[in-house]
C-alpha cells in the first residue's frame, strides 16, 4: 500500500556480522518477495525484499552484506559504511535491525554499538535463539534493552521463532518514526555510546561545520572514509582531507583505539545479561574439522567431493537438458510447419528460439552445481576450503576466497565472477576475475563431447579407464592450469603492494537451511539468464542475420545453383535440402567472413567452415556444433547433436566431418591434430560476450575486459597451433 514515490516507502536495513544468520532472517521475513536493490555507485548487490506489516502497510527490507565493523576491508563490506554515512542517499534506511548471533554475543556487538552512535532507530535481534537454548545459554533481553536503550528481541531465523514479534516491534518503531516526521521534531542526538577522544571531537566538529552534518560519529566516519566515498564531491573530499592533515588525525590508529574502547564498554553489559555454561572442549564441529581440515585428509576429501559433484551434474542434468532441447525442437518444428516460409519465421525459429534454447539448456547444469555449492556454503564447509587452499591460491596471485569463484566457474563464469566481491584486496580480486573464464564452464561441454567423439578412439585403457573420458578430464585440467599460470603471470606483472587478508571466521557446522539454499540457486540462475542470457539472445539473433543474408543477391544465386546441382546428382529430398542450406550459408556474410579469415586459422589446421563456426560461437560456445551441423549438410538433425548418447545424428555429423577435405590440397580437414587443436582452442578462448560484459562491470572499465579477451585469444591461438604442429 505504498503510495507516492520511492522516498515515502519506509526502508528497513538488516545489518550484522558475517555468519550471524542475517540472510536466514531476511529470507524468513520476505520469502520470495525479494530482488536486487538498486544502489548507485556500488557494484555490490544488496538484496531487497518487501516486508508486510499486520496492518497492511509495507516496507522495503534491505539485506546488507555481513561486516564486522564500519571500518571495512572489502568492497562487499564497504556498502554498509557508504550508505550509512550518506543521509541523502535514496536508500538511506529509516530503521536498522541489527542481527547478532546470540551464542557469540560478546564478539558480535561491536558494529551494533557503532550503529547506536549514528542515531538511526535501531532494534537488536538476538538470532539463533534455538541454538542458544540447546547450548544452555540464557539471555536477559530486557536487561540488554535497558542498557542500550533500544528494543531487543530473541529470534530464530531458522525456526521462525518470534518472527511475528519482530515484525510487530518494527511496525511500532516505524509508526513512531512517522509521527515524529509529521510533527517535524528536530532529531536530537542522544548521548553516544562511544566517547570521542579530544582529537576526534575536534576533527568531527570541523567536518560537521564545513559539511553541515548533524551526527558527530557520522562526521568522524567521514574523516576515516572520505577518500573512497563516492557521494562526496571533490571539494568536500579536499575539505575533509585538509582537516585530517592539519589536525594530524591518524585514521588507522584511531580505528583500533575506538574498537578497543567499544569492546571495553559493551563486554561488561553483555556479560551481565548472558549466562552461558562453560564451553565444551570437543564439539561436533571440532571433531568434523579434525578430519575435514586435516593436513592430508582435508584436500583429499575436497577433491573427492568435487569429483562427486561433477559426476552428479552430468548424471542429473542429462534428462532435463533432453527435455529442454526436445521441447524447443518441437516448438520450432511446429512453428515452421504452421507459419509461412518467410524470413520472419526463420528469425523466430533459427534466431530467437535457437538463442533461447541455447540459454535454457544450461540451466539444469548451472542449477545443480549451485545447489551443491550452496549446500557446502550453508553448512560452513566453504570457509574451510578457503582456509586450506589460501596458500596455494596466494602463490598464483589470488586469495583462498578465489576458490569459490573458480569452483563456480565450472558452471558459468558470469555468477562466478560476481562472487569474487568478498575478496578485499583489489589485485587478488582482479586476478580472480581475469582467470575465472579459463575454467571450463558448462557451455564448453557440448563442444568437447562432439570433438572428442570425433578424434579420440573409444577404447578403454587397461580395460576400464575410457580414453575419451580421460581426454575430457584433461580439458578441465588444461583450463585450471591456464588459470593458475596466468594468475601467476599477472601477479608478477601487477606487483601492487596492498594489504591482503585471509582472516576468516570458520563457522560452526550447521544443517543447511533449504530456503536459503533454494533462494541462492534461484539468484545464481537468474544472474545467468539475465546477465548472460540477454547477450546470448542478442548475439544469436545478429548471427542468424549474418548467416541468413549475404552481399547482394549472392544467397539467391547460391540457392538456385545448389538446387540445380541437387537435381542433377539425384539427391533425395532431405539431403537436397541440407545441401541447399549449406550452400546458402557459404554465400552468406558469415560464410564470406569465414573464407576471409581462413589464412589466419589455417596454421591451426582449420578451414573456412570451422572459421564460420568459430565466429558464430562467439555468443555461446555450444553454437559451434549447431553451425557445423548446417555446414556439413546435416539438414535439421542439429538438435540432437548435443545429446551425449550415441545417436544417429551425432554419428552422421562425425561421419561428415571425417570426410571433409581441404579445397586446395585435398587433405582431410579433421585429423586427430585438428580436433585436438580445436579442443584446446575452445578450452582457452574467451568465446563469451556476456563474461566480457560482467568483467567490465566488476572491474569498472573495458580496459580489463579487452585485455582479458586479448590474452585469452592469444593463449587459445598459440595453444591450438602448438597442439596442431605437435600432432600432425
Amino acid at each position, binding site marked *: 500500500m505504498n503510495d507516492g514515490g520511492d522516498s515515502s516507502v519506509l526502508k528497513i536495513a538488516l545489518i550484522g556480522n558475517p555468519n550471524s544468520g542475517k540472510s536466514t532472517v531476511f529470507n524468513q521475513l520476505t520469502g520470495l518477495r525479494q530482488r536486487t536493490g538498486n544502489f548507485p555507485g556500488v557494484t555490490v548487490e544488496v538484496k531487497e525484499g518487501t516486508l508486510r506489516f499486520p496492518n497492511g502497510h509495507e516496507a522495503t527490507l534491505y539485506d546488507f552484506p555481513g561486516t*564486522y*565493523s564500519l*571500518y571495512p*576491508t572489502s568492497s562487499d563490506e564497504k556498502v554498509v559504511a557508504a550508505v550509512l554515512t550518506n543521509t541523502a542517499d535514496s536508500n538511506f534506511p529509516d530503521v536498522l535491525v541489527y542481527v547478532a548471533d546470540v551464542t*557469540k554475543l*560478546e*564478539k*558480535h556487538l*561491536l*558494529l551494533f554499538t557503532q550503529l547506536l552512535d549514528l542515531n538511526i532507530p535501531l532494534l537488536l535481534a538476538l538470532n539463533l535463539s534455538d541454538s542458544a537454548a540447546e547450548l544452555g545459554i540464557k539471555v536477559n533481553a530486557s536487561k540488554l534493552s535497558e542498557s542500550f536503550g533500544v528494543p531487543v528481541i530473541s529470534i530464530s531465523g531458522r525456526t521462525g521463532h518470534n518472527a511475528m514479534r519482530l515484525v510487530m516491534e518494527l511496525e511500532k518503531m516505524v509508526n513512531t518514526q512517522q509521527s515524529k516526521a509529521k510533527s517535524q521534531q528536530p532529531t536530537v542526538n542522544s548521548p553516544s555510546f562511544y566517547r570521542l577522544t579530544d582529537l576526534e571531537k575536534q576533527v568531527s566538529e570541523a567536518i560537521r561545520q564545513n559539511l553541515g552534518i548533524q551526527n558527530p560519529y557520522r562526521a568522524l566516519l567521514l574523516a576515516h572514509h572520505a577518500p573512497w566515498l563516492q557521494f562526496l564531491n571533490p571539494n568536500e573530499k579536499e575539505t575533509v582531507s585538509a582537516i585530517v592533515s592539519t589536525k594530524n588525525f591518524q585514521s*588507522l*590508529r584511531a*580505528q*583500533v583505539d575506538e*574498537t*578497543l574502547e567499544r*569492546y571495553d564498554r559493551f563486554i561488561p553489559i553483555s556479560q551481565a545479561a548472558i549466562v552461558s555454561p562453560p*564451553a565444551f572442549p570437543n564439539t561436533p*564441529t*571440532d571433531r568434523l*574439522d579434525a578430519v575435514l*581440515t*586435516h*593436513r*592430508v585428509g*582435508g*584436500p583429499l576429501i575436497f577433491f573427492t567431493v568435487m569429483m562427486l559433484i561433477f559426476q552428479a551434474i552430468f548424471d542429473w542434468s542429462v534428462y532435463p537438458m533432453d527435455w529442454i532441447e526436445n521441447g524447443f525442437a518441437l516448438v520450432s518444428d511446429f512453428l515452421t510447419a504452421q507459419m509461412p516460409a518467410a524470413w520472419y519465421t526463420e528469425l523466430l525459429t533459427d534466431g530467437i528460439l535457437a538463442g533461447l534454447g541455447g540459454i535454457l539448456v544450461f540451466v539444469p547444469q548451472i542449477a545443480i552445481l549451485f545447489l551443491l555449492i550452496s549446500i557446502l556454503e550453508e553448512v560452513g564447509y566453504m*570457509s574451510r576450503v*578457503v*582456509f*586450506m*587452499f*589460501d*596458500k*596455494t591460491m*596466494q602463490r598464483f596471485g589470488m586469495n*583462498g576466497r578465489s576458490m569459490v569463484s573458480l569452483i563456480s566457474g565450472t558452471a558459468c563464469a558470469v555468477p562466478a565472477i560476481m562472487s569474487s566481491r568478498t575478496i578485499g584486496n583489489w589485485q587478488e580480486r582482479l586476478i580472480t576475475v581475469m582467470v575465472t573464464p579459463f575454467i571450463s564452464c558448462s557451455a564448453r561441454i557440448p563442444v568437447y563431447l562432439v570433438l572428442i567423439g570425433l578424434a579420440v578412439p573409444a577404447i578403454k585403457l587397461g580395460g576400464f579407464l575410457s580414453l575419451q573420458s580421460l581426454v575430457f578430464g584433461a580439458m578441465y585440467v588444461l583450463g585450471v592450469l591456464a588459470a593458475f599460470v596466468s594468475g601467476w603471470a599477472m601477479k608478477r606483472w601487477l606487483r601492487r603492494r596492498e*594489504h591482503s*587478508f*585471509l*582472516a*576468516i*571466521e*570458520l*563457522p*560452526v557446522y550447521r544443517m543447511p537451511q533449504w530456503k536459503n539454499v533454494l533462494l541462492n540457486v534461484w539468484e545464481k540462475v537468474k544472474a545467468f539468464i539475465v546477465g548472460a542470457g540477454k547477450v546470448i539472445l542478442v548475439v544469436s539473433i545478429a548471427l542468424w542475420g549474418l548467416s541468413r543474408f549475404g552481399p547482394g543477391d549472392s544467397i539467391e544465386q547460391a540457392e538456385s545453383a545448389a538446387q540445380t546441382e541437387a537435381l542433377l546428382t539425384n539427391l533425395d529430398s532431405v539431403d537436397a535440402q541440407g545441401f541447399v542450406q549449406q550452400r546458402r550459408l557459404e554465400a552468406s556474410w558469415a560464410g564470406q567472413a569465414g573464407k576471409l579469415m581462413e589464412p589466419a586459422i589455417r596454421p591451426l589446421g582449420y578451414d573456412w567452415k570451422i572459421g564460420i563456426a568459430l565466429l558464430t560461437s562467439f555468443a555461446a560456445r555450444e553454437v559451434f556444433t549447431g553451425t557445423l551441423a548446417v555446414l556439413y549438410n546435416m539438414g535439421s538433425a542439429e538438435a540432437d547433436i548435443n545429446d551425449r548418447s550415441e545417436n544417429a545424428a551425432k554419428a552422421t555429423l562425425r561421419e561428415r566431418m571425417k570426410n571433409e577435405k581441404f579445397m586446395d590440397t585435398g587433405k582431410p580437414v579433421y585429423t586427430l591434430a585438428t580436433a585436438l587443436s580445436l579442443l584446446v582452442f575452445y578450452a582457452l578462448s574467451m568465446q563469451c560476450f556476456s563474461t566480457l560484459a560482467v568483467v567490465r562491470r566488476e572491474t569498472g572499465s573495458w580496459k580489463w575486459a579487452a585485455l582479458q579477451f586479448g590474452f585469452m585469444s592469444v593463449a587459445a591461438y598459440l595453444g591450438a597451433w602448438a597442439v596442431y604442429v605437435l600432432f600432425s
Partner: protein
Amino acid sequence: MQRRYRNISDLKTNESARAIAFDDSELACKLTSMGLLPGTRIEMIRKSPFGNAYYVKADGVRLALRQEEAASIFLEM
C-alpha cells in the same frame, strides 16, 4: 636481547596463550573487529595443509589466519 613475546607460530597444537599486542595497525583493525583483542586467549588447532595458515580458536571463535596475520599478534610468554 631476549624476546619478550611469542608468536602464534611458536604454539604447539592445542597450546594456548594470551594476545598482548599487535604490530600492524591495519591488521589490528581487522582482527579486533573480528573479536581478537589484546587479552584474548588464542589456541592453536592446526596448520593448513599447505602450510602458511593457521586454524586457531580465539576465545572459542574459530579463525583462519595467514602466517603474516598471525605474526602481527604478540603473545605472552
